């Protein structure tokens, strides 16, 4: 494959070019309630070429080998059009050329597990909620996604890497009269099929929560002090802070670049945040990004001070900051963009009991249900929560979305637990532009935040 890709690259007249060919193998099994609605394995493939010429960088994604000439002509024309009209030429930060093959070590390769076994495992987990009263339906499936990537650059890199992601999960819906409540459930990872075994307890727990939520009350809209659990704190870290550590999102926003200057004191001094794609077995694990740069841990915040940023080769040069290996594509349909690997708040020294004592009166919110950011403001949904009075949980609440200002919230994190957990989601992914990254991993300990706006009823 490398020889074929090198032949294509040799036909491109550019200062720099790279080509990535990917084969994507997907296995999907889906249940809606008791009914199996989908099952099968399929394989798709495609190419992405990037060209840097006279300071203009452009990309093209294409499917058919017979379109190669057309694709090369288009991408070079686009690069020249950019070069003619862009005042500051694009440069790439220097990185060594790499010749390597990275095939992850797995605890059970999903490719060696039969479809029948995958089907039975999914059916077993799906039946856990369906056996309970008040459960109206489920949408639970198995998904296995394998990216076999071949990357070649005009600088001499030749990298083959496989990313193998099995997941099982979905939603459980409870119903009582006209009230519907759903919760997300599941598990997934990069460490092999074994992670999906023996997780009945998760499905039992989430089923019970869906049923309890039917009787939970909505919360009154307003501002509260809140403890958020590791999953929700991880989503906060990812959505509210992490995205603005992605250099491409702030590159052309002078006002945000000003706020996100390295050295700026943005958070409470107890706050340390890191992104580390090299953590083995985590969902966010990879060795090389889709520019062929070896991933490295990046300390984003230390003692509340901004200390680092996630970069592509282009943004590392533009910001004159160290390269980090965070430029990743969803698949063969896209050029890579800057992405988090495994982002997390490092553990502090408070026990859970300390946090509840410090909270006194407020809310305890658990598990994320989608999040979004627009710069300094963020919103995310929570799956469930509890009202806390005098440091004690008193009643369950439902449908709480929280919203806030990034900079105020970073300062309002007043206590950090000692119980770091990293996510292993069984569904979903992080959307940015038109791309979805299913290997986005986040985590945190429990944290206490003052004065968070909660939308209730």
């Amino acid at each position, binding site marked *: 494959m490398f020889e074929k890709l090198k032949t294509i690259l040799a036909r491109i007249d550019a200062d720099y070019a790279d080509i990535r060919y990917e084969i994507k193998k997907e296995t999907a099994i889906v249940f809606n309630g008791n009914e199996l*609605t*989908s099952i099968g394995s*399929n394989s*798709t493939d495609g190419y992405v070429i990037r060209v840097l010429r006279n300071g203009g*960088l452009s990309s093209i994604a294409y499917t058919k080998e017979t379109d190669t000439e057309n694709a090369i002509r288009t991408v070079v024309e686009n690069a020249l059009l950019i070069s003619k009209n862009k005042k500051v030429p694009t440069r790439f930060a220097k990185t060594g050329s790499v010749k390597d093959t990275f095939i992850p070590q797995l605890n059970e390769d999903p490719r060696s597990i039969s479809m029948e076994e995958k089907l039975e495992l999914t059916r077993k987990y799906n039946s856990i909620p369906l056996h309970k009263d008040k459960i109206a339906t489920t949408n639970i499936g198995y998904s296995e996604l394998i990216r076999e990537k071949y990357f070649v650059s005009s600088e001499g890199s030749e990298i083959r890497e496989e990313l193998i992601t099995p997941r099982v999960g979905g939603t459980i819906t409870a119903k009582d009269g006209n009230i*519907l409540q759903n919760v997300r459930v599941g598990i997934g990872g990069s460490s092999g099929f074994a992670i999906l075994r023996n997780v009945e307890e998760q499905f039992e727990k989430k089923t019970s929560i869906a049923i309890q939520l039917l009787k939970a009350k909505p919360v009154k809209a307003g501002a509260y002090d809140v403890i958020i659990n590791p999953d929700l704190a991880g989503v906060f870290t990812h959505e509210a802070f992490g995205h603005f550590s992605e250099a491409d999102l702030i590159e052309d926003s002078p006002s945000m670049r000003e706020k996100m200057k390295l050295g700026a004191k943005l958070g409470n001094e107890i706050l340390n945040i890191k992104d580390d794609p090299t953590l083995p077995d985590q969902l966010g694990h990879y060795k090389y990004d889709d520019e062929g740069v070896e991933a490295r841990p990046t300390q984003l915040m230390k003692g509340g001070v901004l200390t680092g940023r996630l970069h592509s080769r282009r943004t590392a040069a533009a910001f004159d900051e160290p390269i980090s290996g965070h430029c990743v594509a969803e698949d063969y349909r896209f050029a890579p963009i800057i992405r988090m690997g495994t982002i997390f708040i490092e553990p502090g020294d408070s026990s859970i009991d300390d946090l509840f004592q410090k909270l006194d009166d407020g809310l305890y919110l658990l598990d994320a249900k989608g999040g979004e950011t627009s710069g300094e403001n963020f919103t995310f949904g929570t799956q469930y929560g509890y009202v806390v009075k005098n440091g004690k949980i008193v009643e369950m609440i439902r449908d709480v979305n929280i919203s806030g200002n990034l900079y105020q919230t970073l300062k309002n994190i007043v206590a950090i637990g000692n119980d770091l957990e990293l996510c292993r989601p069984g569904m979903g992914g992080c959307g940015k532009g038109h791309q979805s990254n299913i290997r986005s991993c986040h985590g945190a300990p429990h944290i206490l935040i003052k004065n968070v706006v909660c939308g209730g009823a």
Partner: protein
Amino acid sequence: MEKLLELASMSADQVEIYAIKQKSDSVTFENAKLKDIDSSIQSGLSLRIIKDGKTGFAYTKNLHDREGLIRNAVDSLKGGVEGQLDFPYTKDIAEVDSYDSAIESLMNEKLYEECSRICEYLTGKTKGQINVNSEITTDDIRIINNQGTDIANKSSHYSLTPFVLYPGSYASIYRMFRRKKFEAVPNDFLDYILHTYNSSEKEVSLKSGKVKTLFLPETMYVLMWRLRFASNGKNIYVKESPLIDKIGDTIFDERVTIFDDPLNDNFPGARSFDDEGIPCRRLDVVRNGVLRNFYYDLFYAKKMNTQPTGHGFKSAMWGGETVSLKPTPSLQHLFIEPGNKSIGEIINSIDKGIIIPEAMGAHSGNIPNGDFSVGLSPGLYVENGEITGHIKDAMVTGNIYDLFNTVLEIEDTVHPSSGGTFPAILFDNVSVGTKTS
């Protein structure tokens, strides 16, 4: 394709092949400067077979191996996915004018020049940061099945979206300009964005409480998301909708009419058949406040013992590779009927309230129940009929079945926006949460 149909027919009772070719070019400007130009040329096909009442499905981007693709589909039959449905024999479909060949010769240079012209027009008239996205795409779809259906649709789509951004944020005022071919964006389109941004430049605060709230066309998708979910034939079948048994009931204010109209080719993306080859037609979901119809694909129509409505589309909530998706009930051409007041008259009628030009977290919250709880990004504050500033860190919360019974005004014009073509709608007594109580 014909060869594949012939080969697959040997292993199945019914065969359907869906093929798509797509081409797209995009030009983006950030901070009034050229940022990226990217292109994509994609193709692929999916194969659906039915044998002994079971469905098999397979797809590929490159047809390297016909037998391999058929084998994948046959293998998937073994799972036992129910397939009690009949692929249609469709011919003599309505003609829709969805394609303009002029788009084929449009160069990225032209897109660049138009984005550049818009940046120049806006620069100096506002202090906000200016971003512009533009894109041209063409889609070429063909469906054949062994009932004799062989239908195709070609569509062209040009879109350009100018944004004016608030400082320190991606919160913005924006509007999508969508056509079947390239057309220069008129100045009054840009003036709307300028005026709305400039009059809301000042940051103001608002106390938590209930206020009049104007959802602009750009945020109507938040509310429609809940209605799409509840009127989806699949969710009726799995009993995950609060609208089961409510056909014929008045669920919204009588001025509200919401319908799907794939044949309306005034806007890009018109279709005369869905992704299963069923002819498309207009379908009222809500007419004059009364719930009229749910929408179905072949599979769920059969399950519910009703007729398919031509809404089986290969779409997913978060995009995804088209060929890898099986048809599912989907409203692709949603409209809300306009009212009788201009946007200016509506804003003038607000004594105290907010306008939502952009929302965050539409996908959060209890969607089946019709609940929403979204962050304002930002919210515009209106006092005595004038926009006087913008508020941050605020959320609006409610339930669409309450909200659509508090309609005050509906705008007299519809705008192509994400998720459909909508007017702005003013609602009464919407709950807003802020840091000030």
